[in-house]
C-alpha cells in the first residue's frame, strides 16, 4: 500500500473510534443520571481501576500496556467530566423547576 492508502485506512479507523467514543460517552451520561438518582458519587476509583485493568488485560499490542493505560486515563477523564456536567445540569434543572412550582402555590 502507498502512503495515501495507509492514511485513508487511518481516517476510516478514526471514524470508527469517534463513533465508539461517543457511544461510550452516551453510557457515561446515562450512568451520571442514575448516580444522581441514587445519590452516588461521580468519582468511583475502584471502577476506574477495573476499567484500566480490563483494557490492559485484553491488550495484545503492538501498543504497550502503559500506552493503553495512558490512553484510557484520558478517556476516563472525559467520561468523568461528562458525568459531572450531567449531574450538575440535572441538579440545576430540578432546582429551577422546584422554584417555579413553589411560586404559583404561594399565590393560590
Amino acid at each position, binding site marked *: 500500500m502507498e502512503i495515501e492508502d495507509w492514511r485513508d485506512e487511518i481516517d476510516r479507523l478514526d471514524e470508527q473510534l469517534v463513533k465508539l467514543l461517543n457511544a461510550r460517552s452516551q453510557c457515561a451520561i446515562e450512568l451520571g443520571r442514575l448516580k444522581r438518582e441514587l445519590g452516588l*458519587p461521580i*468519582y468511583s476509583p475502584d471502577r476506574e481501576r477495573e476499567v484500566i485493568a480490563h483494557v490492559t488485560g485484553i491488550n495484545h499490542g503492538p501498543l504497550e500496556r502503559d500506552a493503553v493505560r495512558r490512553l484510557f486515563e484520558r478517556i476516563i477523564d472525559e467520561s468523568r467530566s461528562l458525568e459531572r456536567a450531567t449531574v450538575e445540569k440535572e441538579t440545576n434543572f430540578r432546582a429551577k423547576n422546584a422554584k417555579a412550582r413553589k411560586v404559583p402555590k404561594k399565590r393560590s
Partner: protein
Amino acid sequence: MVIVMDETATEEQVSAVIDKLVRLGFDIHRSTGVRHTVLGAVGDRVIDWRDIELLAGVKEVLRVTAPYKLASRSFKPEGTQIKIKDVVIGGREVVMMAGPCTVESRDQVMAIAEIVSRNGAKVLRGGAFKPRTSPYSFQGLGEEGLKYLRQAADRHGLLVVSEVMEPSQIPLFIRYVDILQIGARNMQNFNLLREVGRLNKPVLLKRGPAATIEETLLAAEYVMSSGNHEVIICERGIRTFEPYLRNTFDISAIPVFKKFSHLPVVADPSHATGRRDKVPPVAQAAVAAGVDALLIEVHNDPENALCDGAQSLLPDQFERLMHRLRLIAKAVDREVAPGVEEAALK
C-alpha cells in the same frame, strides 16, 4: 492547577486527591508517569491550594492561573483606559499628577496649581487628611484643604486626586475630588477597598511598602469585585534592606504590573525616594519603563513645607523634569503634554 504526586504515593492517595478535586467541581486530567502521577485540575473554581498540598502523597501543587480575575490582563487584554473629563489615563499620554504633599493654605495650593498646570500637568495632587507616621506631625487641613484643592484645580483646568483614609470620609471626598487615592498603609484595609469599590469614581491604589505584586493586584480585585473597575495601580517603593533612601523604587514592578494586569500604572518617585535630588532620575526611568502616569510632589517653598518638604521638587526642577520626560516619552512611543510655552511655540 497542576498536582504532582510523590514517587511513593499509593493508588489510594491518588484516588483521594482526585476525589477531593471532583467534589470541589474540577475536571481532572490524570497522567500516570514512570515515577510521578500528575493531575491537572481544570476549572475556574477559587480554592485554597494549601488544602490540596496538605493531602497525603502530594509532592507539590503548581498554580497556573492568578488568584485575581477582574484585575488580570486576560480579563481585558487591550488594557484599561480611564477617562475623566478630557484626561485619559492608560492611553498614549503619560499623565502628570503633581502638587504639594499637603495642602497648607489657599495661596499655597493656588500658586502650585499654576506652576504644575503651566508645565503640562493634568491632575493636581495634595493631601487634606494626612496619615503621618507620628501623631504629633501636621495632620492636614481636612475639608478646608479639599475645598482649596478643588478651587485651585478648577481655576487651572486640572483634576484633583487626594487620599481618603477611612470610609466615613467618602461622602466628603466625592464632592471635591476626581480620583480617590488609597494610601500605601491602607492598601489592605479591605473595608475601605470595598467601600470605594461601590463608587463610580476612579481609585488610585498605592502598593503597600511591604506588599508583593500579587497582593497589590488582589487589593485592586477587592475594589473591582465590588463593582468599580476604574483602578490605577501605584508603585511607590517598597521596604528593603537598603537604608539610604526612604524606600526602594521597584522599577521592575512596572512591566510586571503591565504584564499581569490591564490596569493603568502610575509611579510615585517622591515617596519612593524621599529626596528631591533623586526624584527626577527615578521619574525618568519610570516613564522609560512604561508607566501611564506619574505622581510627583512640587512645592513653591519646600524649606518651609509642613510635610515632606525634602522630597518636593522646586518649580524650576519640575519644569526641567517635564522637559526631559517629553524626550524620554517620545523614545518609548508615548507622550507627555507640552507646557504652556511649548504649546505656544506649536
